[in-house]
Every structure is written in C-alpha cells, then in structure tokens.
C-alpha cells in the first residue's frame, strides 16, 4: 500500500488521551472527570487540557455542577464527536492491508 492511500487522521482525536476519552464516551451517555482520569491513567491538568481541546472542536460537551459541596464535571459525546470518531475509525482501517483488519 502506498502512503497516498492512507486516509488522513483527525489531529484532534490523534492523541492517546483524547482517543481514550472518546472511546469511553462512545458507549456512555456521560462519564465524570474522575472516571476518565482513572481509566485513561492521566493527571488532572493533562486531562483538562485534552478535554478542552475536544470541547473546542465541538466533539464533547462538558458540564460543570456541584454534587453536595463537591464540584462535579461530566462529559458527553456530541453528534459531531460521534461522527468524527466514526470517521477516525474508518481512516484507521486504511492503515491495514486489505482483509487484515
């Protein structure tokens, strides 16, 4: 396969943490910040930066609220995010030789 047949990957998703976040949110209606931090194995600051990028691109919606006295940040995937994730998966397929997906 020649490189020109590779489909370009969305740079917003093409990062380990952001891809991990979207992979969680694709099956979830919403997930809270601590869950995403725990499952992606990242730090508060790092995750916040990645979430901000995804939110800026319109791929996720971030809601900030309070649960009792504790702040609670929850994230959910937008329609644009779902579509971008599907496109990303399709683009990833192009990196595999035919019949070896």
């Amino acid at each position, binding site marked *: 396969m020649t490189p020109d047949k590779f489909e370009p990957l969305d740079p917003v998703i093409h990062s380990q943490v952001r891809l991990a976040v979207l*992979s969680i949110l694709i*099956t*979830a209606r919403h997930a809270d910040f*601590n869950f995403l931090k725990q*499952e992606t194995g990242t730090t508060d600051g790092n995750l916040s930066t990645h979430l901000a990028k995804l939110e800026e691109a319109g791929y996720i919606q971030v809601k900030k609220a309070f649960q009792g006295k504790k702040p609670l940040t929850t994230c959910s995937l937008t329609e644009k995010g779902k579509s971008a994730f599907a496109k990303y998966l399709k683009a990833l397929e192009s*990196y595999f030789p035919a019949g070896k997906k």
Partner: protein
Amino acid sequence: MDEMQAKEEIRLIKAMLEKTKRATAESGTLFMVWGVLIALGLMGNYVLVYFKMYDWEWLNWVAVTVIGWVYSVIYGIRKERKEPVRTYIQTAARHLYIACGAGFLLVGIALPALDVYSHEAIVILIAVISGILFFVMGGIYEWPILKWFGLIWWMGALGMSFIKGIGIRTLIFTVLFVACYLVPSFILRSKYKKEQASK
C-alpha cells in the same frame, strides 16, 4: 503513522471499551432484593393459604410490591448520584426493569383485582414477563445463559397453562422461581464480584 501504530490505537480503543463495560457491569443487587421479597411473598402466601386466610393474600403481594418498588426507587436514585459513568446499555436495562416492574404490578395485582382474568392466570403471566426480562437482559449484557433462563420461563408459562389448579401451578411457579430467578441472580452477583475483583 504505520500499521503497527494503527494496531496500537485499535488496542487502546478496545481496552477503553472493555474498561467501561467492566465499570458498568450489572451488579444483580435489585435482582436479589426482588428475589428475596418474592420468595418471602410466596412463603407468606403459603402460610395464608394453610390457615385459610384467603382475604389477606392480596395484602401480602401488595406489601411485597410496595417494599420492592420503594427500595428500587431509592436504590436507583442513590446509584445514579454515585455512578461515575452511565452507558446506553445501563439506560436500556433500567428501562427494561421499569417496564417489567410495571408489567408485574399490572398482571399480578391490578388486572386480577379488576376481574380482568382469574387469579389462576397470574403465575402464567408473571412467568411470561420474567421470560422477557431474562431474555432481553441476556441480549443486552451479551450473556447467553440468561437467554436460556428466559426460554425456560416461557416454556414454564406454556406448561402451566396445560395444568389446572392454582395449587399445582403455584408449586411449579415456585420451582421455576428458585431455578430460573434466584439461581441466575446469585450467578449474576458472583460474576459481578469476580469482575470487580479483577479490575
């Protein structure tokens, strides 16, 4: 980006999907609570029939249902507040529980009280709804054994319809209940504990 990196990304996506699945596995708590309540209801029913206190039978089942619903609502609200992630599968399962709970209320209490059908038909209809509950649960959590329990409930419903007499029907229902409700509830619970332990 090359094939190796693409494979690594696919592996990451699969790992995240698996982690989310584990974090939102069905705990079986509500199944067990309802199982214990219905078992108590069946025992209460037996005692009332033994002492020929037929007029109190309905109250026995109303008490079981009210306690079950109040517990389920409080449990649901508390769980929703605490849960860090909510998947579409969980939402589907919750709607299934509510639908079957409403079905049990209607076919077990409301409709017979309104004389829509004889009390003898209650166990058959309860078995049909139990079959739906287990079959769909097996489908959404991708656990085939639950589907088999669903099929057994439906076969039991069909079998009970050929047998006359509320006593023998209730006995068959009790056997079905222990084998196809309590047993899968305990299996579900132990599967959940194993999954949580392996996290």
